């Protein structure tokens, strides 16, 4: 089998909704579970109400898809172990080891600048508190762009006049502007205001994954070497959102590297259904 397929698979798994649901279900069990249990939980997660016949059919399809495709794929990527004969899924030890070593070393490195970093250093990660300041920083980044601005929004700040102005100015300078949002109305509005920009619907579910983590509010990547990522955290007291920004500057900055790795396949390949998508297939059509 083509060795590059493994790498491609791991990248896909990082962004695939079904795969991440499988992994989080497995984590919740703290050990192992069988194919039937896993499939039942996933179907229950997908559909609130299903007739008995339809439930059986969905369950059967899911079991087949898990056994023939998802589980072997995840096992190959080292994310879980799958006993193909007894249909038992267990957590991968190697994954835990990997997470632990990541926690111990890289994570400390990643977090260190939060506490004692100096802005401007190549490996420093800056923190910006408050929504006004993160918006301002986003504009500054856009104004500095030479080649490319890539951004994703969860909210409607794209229609903010200052945002539109800096995006327009960038387009005028010959910068390629990409804007992604999950909201169809916002995409239409952005298309009206910025006809030269590339508007698309993010397939990445980490933008609005309904998990307990704070959700991502905005991602701005400029010239693939400056990054702003904002987190939206709901305040328990008054249900308002608090936005915090993380920034990284420089090609080898850890935040920039991380975001580039996650977005890489999308930056080069924005549309899965584009004409060139057939080139990426592992066999000839």
């Amino acid at each position, binding site marked *: 089998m083509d060795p590059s397929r493994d790498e491609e698979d791991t990248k896909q798994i990082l962004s695939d909704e079904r795969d991440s649901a499988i992994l989080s279900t497995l984590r919740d069990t703290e050990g192992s579970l069988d194919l039937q249990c896993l499939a039942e939980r996933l179907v229950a997660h997908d559909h609130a109400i299903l007739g008995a016949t339809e439930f059986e059919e969905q369950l059967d399809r899911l079991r*087949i898809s898990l*056994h023939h495709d998802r589980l072997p794929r995840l096992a*190959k990527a080292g994310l879980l172990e799958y006993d*193909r004969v007894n249909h038992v899924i267990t957590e991968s030890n190697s994954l835990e080891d990997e997470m632990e070593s990541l926690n111990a070393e890289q994570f400390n490195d990643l977090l260190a600048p939060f506490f004692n970093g100096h802005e401007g250093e190549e490996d420093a990660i800056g923190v910006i508190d408050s929504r006004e300041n993160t918006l301002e920083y986003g504009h500054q980044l856009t104004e500095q762009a030479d080649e490319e601005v890539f951004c994703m929004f969860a909210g409607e700040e794209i229609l903010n006049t200052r945002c539109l102005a800096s995006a327009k100015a960038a387009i005028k300078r010959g910068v390629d502007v990409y804007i992604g949002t999950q909201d169809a109305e916002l995409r239409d509005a952005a298309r009206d205001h910025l006809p030269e920009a590339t508007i698309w619907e993010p397939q990445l579910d980490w933008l609005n994954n309904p998990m307990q983590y704070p959700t991502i509010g905005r991602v701005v990547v400029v010239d693939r070497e400056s990054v702003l990522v904002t987190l939206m955290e709901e305040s328990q007291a008054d249900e308002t959102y608090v936005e915090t920004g993380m920034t990284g500057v420089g090609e080898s900055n850890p935040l920039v590297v991380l975001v580039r790795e996650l977005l890489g396949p999308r930056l080069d390949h924005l549309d899965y259904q584009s004409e060139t*998508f057939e080139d990426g*297939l592992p066999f000839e059509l």
Partner: protein
Amino acid sequence: MPTRNESSSEHSAPSVTYERGDDEPYSIAVARAIAAYRNTTPLELDPLYDVVDLQSLDSIFENASESTRPSCSFTFSYDGYEVTVTDDAISVHETNGETT
């Protein structure tokens, strides 16, 4: 629900043609067709992942336009059988004397 037609074609090897249900994913129909041919259940078969990328198989057909889809056909070998996927059916028959 899809129906299963068993027929002995002009060739000596027996074959199974499995008619895919309207909303049945191609990958699911493939696993069920091979299971029907082998007279077993899809879960008793070795994962198809070893020989074919099912996600890509589904996306080929799903992304084909209405007009080109009927002419799409994809064939692969699995455990000594030849499996051919077309828009409305999956056929499975023995590979004639070939070993892989």
